[in-house]
């Protein structure tokens, strides 16, 4: 077999360049939003150092033998579960959540590692020769693998990251080829869960939908009955979980369902974020010149609300360029996942794509007011070391897959 040693074939600049630009945009926005904040003045430098470190790690991951990823799948998963349990006991509480571990002065979120671990182990499990996606046993095992960390994360409680897990589990199952009925069985409880949050009427509506679908799928009565029971359980369980949620998360969910109910409380950030973006206009107010940003109308803007800084200071041009870079990255990952001939790697890439994508839509959707305020960082852009590091490791995996893609042909 002939191996082409051209850089183009070995290294996908199409993956790294958009990410590098996004990172730089993020640095500018972090600089701008922390300029007037004495409590966050070091964040720009910290992010820069984390950035350099992450790029180095990226190249390390890029260079390791591709089969390493399958090898580390189980240990990564187990270690991340261990961390998740440890964090529940000794974790630092930040804004009502126990999700941080202090590691030599650097904050580290075990749930970041858990995302990667879950992607790897699910992909490994589903790509086994013996796994049959058409059996409920294997679907159940895959779901169990995926949901163990979710339960631990929900106990922190971290709603946003739980959503990311739902997304990645669904994406991997979908990519693996779950049947329409299988998908229905997996999805309908989630649907009912969400419906139950909106109220009894929605819940009953969802239930009717599930029953009609079950009739249409024409499965036997006993089987359909147990699925219906599962759905009902999901609905009631959600209601139970909702009540178990911390108060600030409850109000966030409520304020999304009815944002005008509490404009100065939980709805405040959402309103100020929209004002920041809308007032940016076409060209923006200019770097370091956004009043919403510089006067700190949005708390901790360098993390979850960083897209507002871009929107306010660089305008529509800035937000569209950012969108474009993400779109390019996602399409690139999707193509790579399609072209990867190894099932494990292909599933892993889809998992990585879904992690990025869920972060992206929840984060951007939140600041432009079409998603509830759920704390998730914008990949590569938001301030945050462990998030950036894990995102770069996952990008390294993608680049690695690209490097060795011809080995499998």
């Amino acid at each position, binding site marked *: 077999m002939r191996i082409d040693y051209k850089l183009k074939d070995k290294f996908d600049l199409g993956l790294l360049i958009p990410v590098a630009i996004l990172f730089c945009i993020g640095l500018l926005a972090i600089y701008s939003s922390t300029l*007037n904040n004495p409590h966050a003045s070091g964040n720009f430098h910290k992010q820069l150092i984390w950035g350099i470190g992450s790029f180095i790690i990226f190249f390390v991951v890029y260079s390791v033998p591709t089969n390493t990823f399958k090898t580390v799948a189980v240990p990564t998963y187990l270690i991340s579960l261990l961390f998740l349990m440890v964090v529940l006991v000794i974790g630092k509480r930040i804004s009502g959540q126990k999700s941080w571990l202090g590691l030599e002065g650097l904050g580290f979120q075990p749930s970041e590692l858990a995302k990667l671990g879950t992607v790897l182990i699910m992909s490994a499990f589903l790509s086994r*020769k013996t796994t049959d996606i058409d059996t409920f046993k294997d679907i159940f095992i895959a779901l169990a693998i995926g949901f163990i960390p979710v339960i631990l994360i929900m106990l922190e409680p971290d709603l946003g990251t739980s959503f990311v897990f739902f997304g990645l589990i669904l994406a991997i199952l*979908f*990519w693996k*080829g779950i049947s329409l009925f299988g998908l229905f069985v997996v999805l309908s409880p989630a649907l009912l869960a969400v419906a139950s949050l909106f109220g009894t009427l929605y819940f009953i509506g969802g239930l009717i939908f599930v029953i009609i679908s079950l009739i249409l799928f024409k499965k036997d009565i006993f089987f359909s009955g147990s699925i219906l029971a599962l759905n009902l359980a999901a609905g009631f369980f959600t209601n139970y979980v909702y009540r178990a949620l911390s108060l600030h998360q409850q109000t966030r969910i409520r304020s999304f369902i009815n944002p005008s109910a509490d404009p100065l409380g939980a709805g405040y950030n959402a309103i*100020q974020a929209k*004002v920041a973006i809308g007032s940016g206009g076409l060209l923006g107010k200019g770097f370091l010149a956004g009043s919403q940003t510089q*006067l700190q109308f949005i708390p901790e803007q360098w993390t979850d609300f960083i897209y507002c800084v871009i929107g306010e200071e660089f305008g529509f041009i800035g937000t569209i360029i950012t969108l474009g870079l993400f779109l390019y990255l996602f399409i690139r990952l999707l193509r790579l996942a399609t072209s990867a001939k190894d099932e494990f790697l*292909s599933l892993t890439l889809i998992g990585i794509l879904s992690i990025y994508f869920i972060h992206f839509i929840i984060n951007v*959707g939140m600041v432009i007011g079409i998603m509830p305020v759920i704390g998730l960082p914008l990949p590569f852009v938001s301030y945050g070391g462990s998030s950036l590091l894990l995102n770069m490791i996952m990008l390294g995996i993608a680049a690695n897959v690209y490097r060795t893609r011809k080995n499998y042909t």
Partner: protein
Amino acid sequence: MSTDRFASIQRKTIIYFIVIGCFALFGFRLFQMQIIEHESYSEKAANNAIKGIELTPLRGVFYDRNMNVVVSNVPAYTLRITPAEYDTSLNKYLEAVLGEEPGYINKILYGNRLFSKYVPIRIKRGIDFKVVSWLEENEEHLPGVDYIVEMQRGYPAGIRGSHMFGYTKEISPALLEKHKEYYKPGDYIGYSGIEKAYEKFLRGKKGYEYVLVDSRRREIGRFKNGAEDVPSVKGDDLVLTIDSDVQRAAEEALKGFRGAAVAIEPKTGEILALASAPDFDLNEFSYVTSKDYLQKLYNDPDKPFFNRATMAANPPGSTFKPMEAICALNTGTITTATTFTCRGGQDFYGRYFKCDAVHGTLNVIHGIEHSCNVFFYNLIYKIGMTKWDEYAKKFGFGQITHIDIGDESKGFIPTPEYYQKLYGPDWPKSIMASLGIGQGEVNVTPIQLAQYVSLIANDGVTYTPHLVRGYLTTDTKKLVPFSYKKIDLGIDSSVFNIVKEGMFLVVNGSGTAVSIKSKDIQIAGKTGTAQNPHGKNHALFIGFAPFDNPKIAVAVFVENVGFGATYAAPIAKKMIEAYLLKDKIKKENNSKVSDVKDKLIGESLAN
């Protein structure tokens, strides 16, 4: 085991469309927010971040007619606390230093708890300079405590002018509703006297300063470096017609009495002094009036808030006699050759009316000189009720004078119709005899008397009495005079000369006020004693000086003391001397130095 659904084109397309769909939705949403609805968001952002702070303009100051500052602006210190930086454990120290009761600070902080913790709250206005130096010394131990300098009214000329100057006060909700276009809650507004009447000149123009505030309303800088700021414009300075020396003389002379004194320059209608006693200390009103002081004033049976100079209507007594003489002379009812004989009293319509003495036969001049009641009993029957009425009103009685500070009483001049209503068509004509000597139902105010004596002094010509000559323009400091209505009775000066001769003799002949005869100034006047059913008589005096060329006309009214000659006339004399012998008095009292100092301080603050 792999199905053919794994990574199928179909599934890839679905993911592809989900991704593209989300991006399209986001792109559209961003376009909507940043391009279509940009304006409304911009406005919201601007409202968020820019706060306009009103700059209170300096109030115009008052000069007297000699350009001495009589009402000025003086700096006063206000203690403030910024709750976010303040530690309430300091309360006890601050309360001790301020001389307030424990709990004072917490009460104010609690009242302001709904405002941003970063906006300083006024704790006490007008704090002592000693407190300020204590704050300076202990600054580092007092986080969140500071003071600012605010302006309050000062009265550097040593005159009180309580009723005339008036005071400013925080605007009431009712007034605010009426004048929303200018005032905001917490603004000060002229509440009485000149402060109220000339509010529009004095208040100036508000300025605005635009500052950037953060999400906690904390000021963090200036908007566009102050390019959009509008400076406040100081109010117009008023030039009063008051002569501080005359005013001071009147206030001092009235001390201990209830009464009023008004002095007018006859040729112009300019009020030289306007005093009412008892009065009150305007300094107590200059920022926050203490409740105790207000309560004391309200509960005082002598009613210090009542401006007796314009509001107290009482019978004029014999001070009305010159008016009747003018009426009789001008209508040709009598001449100087007409005489009446006083035998110590006379019967009219079945009632006996007394005189103070047996004056014998006298004409109008000596009738005034001796204030002979019998002469004027006869006179009023001769001129008749209608003419008496007409002339009383001609001289401004029974109606307001339109003095510029307002708050006047009309007084009362009875008419034949009034008595008909009261007693029927055959009303007892004996009543007229009382009216002839200014007793009974007739009521006049001191300001009306002052206008009346001005008309006599200046032969029937004067101007509406007023306290403000004009205002100084802010830029050029030139006087812009106000115009006042001319009053011309159209009565020949020969008539006035006869009456004035009588009034001259009152002081300089063998009349009722020879006690105030002065070797330096020729004073003419008329005493009056108004009968009062509720106690001692009221003492009155009207007069003018110098006799040849009257420069000052005075009316004095003192409640419940006795004879006009004894109590009212000496007060008038002091005021006349204060005005006409100014330089002589100044030389005598060596107080000039301190006056100059006051004037300088006043001027420097005025500018």
